[in-house]
């Protein structure tokens, strides 16, 4: 359909020519496959919800309540779809990857091949960190404010929102090193400039921590500290790399 000005560097590189209609048809079929995977995953998820709720109930050592008539049902649905998304994510990522691949030049492809696994790994790591470290601590901290006369009766919908807000944002925030690397590679900022911005970055880490987590100090700090650590580690790595280049 279109002639490419730049040519690929790789010898095995073959430019696949497709018309717009073919692209759309492919997009359609890939979306359908992804949707089917999500649906199937959600159906499986629906049956996993009771077990998950039991698991959560153990963490708070009591049963959940629901205050609106439809709350239990909508929470069930939401959890089922979340589990479904998690189960279907490999298929969805694969479909997206296959769709994008023909549009890329070999060097672009190589960059993406390096960054995509790193990004997914960091996301999984962030979510795991949120679930294993932040969630128990934040929950204990917050429930600790209950007293003899102030008893928790946690609404299940709100609990789910809390749970999501201490796990998913960590997956997103843990992309920080990649963002830094890309910004430096493209030449938007230099390592030296980042160094001079250190104070700012530290401060902003705490701001981001406050914004993206539930309003408790624990999860805020637990988001800010990894951000700062990642910033420093990335900078240190890149400086080492630069010095090697100079030599």
């Amino acid at each position: 359909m279109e002639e490419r000005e730049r040519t690929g560097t790789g010898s095995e590189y073959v430019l696949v020519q497709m018309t717009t209609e073919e692209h759309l048809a492919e997009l359609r079929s890939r979306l359908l496959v992804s949707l089917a995977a999500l649906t199937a995953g959600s159906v499986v998820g629906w049956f996993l919800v009771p077990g998950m709720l039991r698991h959560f109930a153990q963490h708070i050592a009591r049963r959940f309540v629901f205050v609106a008539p439809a709350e239990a049902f909508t929470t069930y649905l939401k959890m089922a779809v979340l589990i479904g998304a998690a189960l279907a994510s490999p298929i969805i990522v694969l479909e997206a990857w296959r769709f994008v691949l023909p549009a890329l030049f070999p060097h672009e492809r190589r960059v993406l091949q390096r960054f995509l696994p790193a990004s997914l790994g960091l996301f999984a790591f962030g979510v795991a960190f949120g679930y294993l470290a932040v969630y128990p601590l934040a929950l204990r901290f917050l429930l600790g404010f209950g007293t003899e006369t102030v008893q928790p009766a946690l609404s299940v919908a709100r609990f789910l929102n809390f749970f999501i807000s201490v796990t998913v944002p960590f997956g997103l925030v843990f992309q920080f090193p990649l963002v830094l690397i890309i910004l430096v590679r493209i030449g938007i900022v230099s390592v030296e400039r980042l160094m001079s911005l250190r104070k700012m970055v530290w401060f902003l880490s705490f701001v981001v921590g406050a914004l993206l987590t539930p309003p408790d100090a624990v999860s805020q700090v637990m988001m800010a500290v990894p951000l700062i650590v990642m910033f420093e580690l990335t900078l240190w790595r890149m400086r080492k790399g630069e010095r090697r280049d100079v030599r």
Partner: protein
Amino acid sequence: MSAESSAETTVEFQDLLQRLNEVRTRLIRSFLFLLAASILAYLFSERALDDMQARLPVGSEMIFLAPSEAFVARIKLALAGGLVLAFPFLMYQILAFVSPYLSRRDRRMGLLLIPLSFGLFLTGAGFSYAVMLPFALRFLLGFGAGELEPMLSISPFVNFVLFLVLPLGLIFQLPIVMVFLTRLGIVDPVVMARNRKYAVFAIFVISAVLTPADVFSQLLMAGPLLVLYEFSLLIARLARRRPTP
């Protein structure tokens, strides 16, 4: 020439003033009627609430989470009840306002339409309250097993009931709307039958917007709506078969 036209303008202006005055009177009257109806409804609101709670499949005890919640829920209930009670009167006010512009026949038809419309509203709302509500509650509270314990708060409950009951009363006005649109030639039963699939789609979207935010109530509303669509189609066919004299 100019004097004549200015005199005409004055007459027109006075006419307009008169109409505005009438609007004012009718608005005030409607408001007062609405207020009276709401006060009346308030007197029955406690009993109505008891009755709603009796539609719950399990224990009908309820809580309120904010200090003002129970009061606000009662007021909301009273206003909704008042609106329903005042509905025919409000319709009459509108009809009376436009009646100078209507032919005798249309005026008579309008007067006939008010009780018909009110009857349809009550049928729709009553159907929703008597059939859909217990069904929906039984299904939704069926999730109150295992680790989930129902501890219904009054305000969401009242909202849920109102949003299930009132929209259906409004939707039951569809046959009347259909007759009008067919008579005016805006709607054609042949086109309606041909575009059925778009109608089905629209019905599901409308149901999603009007009902409490769960798929189940959406389906519960979409079902009767689909029946109503077919019913309207039938009415439209009948209305068209008899050409206007």
